C-alpha cells in the first residue's frame, strides 16, 4: 500500500538500516554518465504496487503534498489562502542502480484521482508504466489505462495473481479491459523478485518496440 504507512518509526529505521550510507554510493560514477530514468507503477489502492517495487529495488519513502495554489506571480506566499488546507502524503519509490551509471526509479503513482496533478510530471520522460491489476477489482485500473492511452505513454498490464486470478484467461482480461491488442498483458506474483523483474523487462521491451 502506498499510503498510511502505519509504523513510521520502524519502517524508517528499517530503511536506514537497509541502506546505511549507500544511497550515494549507488550513484558512483563521477563523470557525466549518470542517467536516472522513471518507471511508473499504477493501479488501484492495495493492488500490490509497493510490494512490486520492493521485490526488485531498494524502497525509500518520499513525502509530497497536495498543491495549495498556483498563482502566476514570481513567488507566491500563503497570504490569502489561510482558509485552504493541505495534507502531506507519504509515498514510496524504489531505486535500482546498475553498474553502467543507469538508475531506474520506480514510482508508485498515487491511485486516487485527487493526485492526478502529479501524474503528468511523473509521466514526462518516463520509460513507461506498469498498470497492476487485481481481477477482482478490474474497474480500479480503468482510470490509469485511460490516462496512459490518451497520453501515449507506453504501458503494459500486469495481473497480480491473487488467489483466483488464474481462473481468468488473459484473453478474458484483455476483453474486459478493452485494451489494444499490442499492449502486453502478463501474469505476475509481485512478491517474487524474478516475477517483478520479468514485468519490468516486458515493459522496457514494449517501450522499445513502440519507440
Amino acid at each position, binding site marked *: 500500500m502506498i499510503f498510511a504507512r502505519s509504523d513510521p518509526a520502524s519502517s524508517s529505521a528499517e530503511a536506514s538500516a537497509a541502506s546505511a550510507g549507500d544511497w550515494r554510493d549507488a550513484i558512483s560514477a563521477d563523470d557525466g554518465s549518470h542517467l536516472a*530514468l522513471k518507471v511508473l507503477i499504477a493501479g488501484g489502492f492495495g493492488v500490490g504496487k509497493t510490494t512490486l517495487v520492493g521485490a526488485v529495488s531498494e524502497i525509500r*519513502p518520499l513525502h509530497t503534498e497536495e498543491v495549495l495554489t498556483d498563482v502566476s506571480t514570481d*513567488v507566491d506566499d500563503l497570504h490569502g489562502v489561510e482558509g485552504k488546507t493541505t495534507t502531506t502524503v507519504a509515498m514510496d519509490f524504489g531505486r535500482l542502480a546498475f553498474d553502467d551509471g543507469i538508475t531506474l526509479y520506480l514510482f508508485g503513482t498515487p491511485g486516487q484521482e485527487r493526485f492526478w496533478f502529479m501524474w503528468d510530471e511523473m509521466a514526462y520522460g518516463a*520509460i513507461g508504466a506498469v498498470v497492476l491489476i487485481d481481477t477482482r477489482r478490474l474497474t480500479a485500473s480503468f482510470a490509469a489505462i485511460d490516462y496512459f492511452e490518451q497520453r501515449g505513454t507506453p504501458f503494459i498490464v500486469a495481473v497480480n495473481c491473487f488467489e483466483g486470478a488464474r481462473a481468468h484467461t488473459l484473453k478474458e482480461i484483455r476483453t474486459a479491459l478493452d485494451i489494444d491488442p499490442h499492449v502486453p498483458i502478463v501474469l505476475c506474483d509481485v512478491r517474487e523478485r524474478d516475477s517483478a523483474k520479468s514485468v519490468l*523487462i516486458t515493459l*522496457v521491451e514494449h517501450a522499445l518496440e513502440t519507440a
Partner: protein
Amino acid sequence: MDSPRERRLNAEAGPLVRPYALTRGRTRVQGFRLDLVTMLVVTGRSPQERARLALEQQRILEMCRRPATVADLTSEMNLPLGVMHVLLADLYQQGLLEERRAAPLAERPSPEILQRVLDDLRAL
C-alpha cells in the same frame, strides 16, 4: 471556528507549519521546474552569504557534492517535495547548484537508452 492551520493525513505526515516556515511561506518559485529524477550537483561556487543559508540548504549542498536526484534528496532530507523545490530553487538561483544531464530532456528515452536498460535488467 475551526483552525485550518494544521491538518494531518496520518500520523507520519506530520504538521505542515514548520516545513513551510523553512521556505518563508513560499510554495512555488516560478520559472523553476524540477523533475523527480532531475540530477543536481554543486557548482563549486562559494555561497556569498553562507551564514544566511538554512541548515537544510547547507546539508543539501553537502549531499550534492556528488550528483543526486530530487527524489533522493527529498527522501534523504525527509521534507515534503514542495518544500524541497523551493529550497533547491534558491540554491540554483544563487548559482550553487546546477543540473547534471546525461541525455537531452525528452518526452521519452531514446531507443539506445532503452536498450541499455533492457540489457541491464536481463543481466540482473
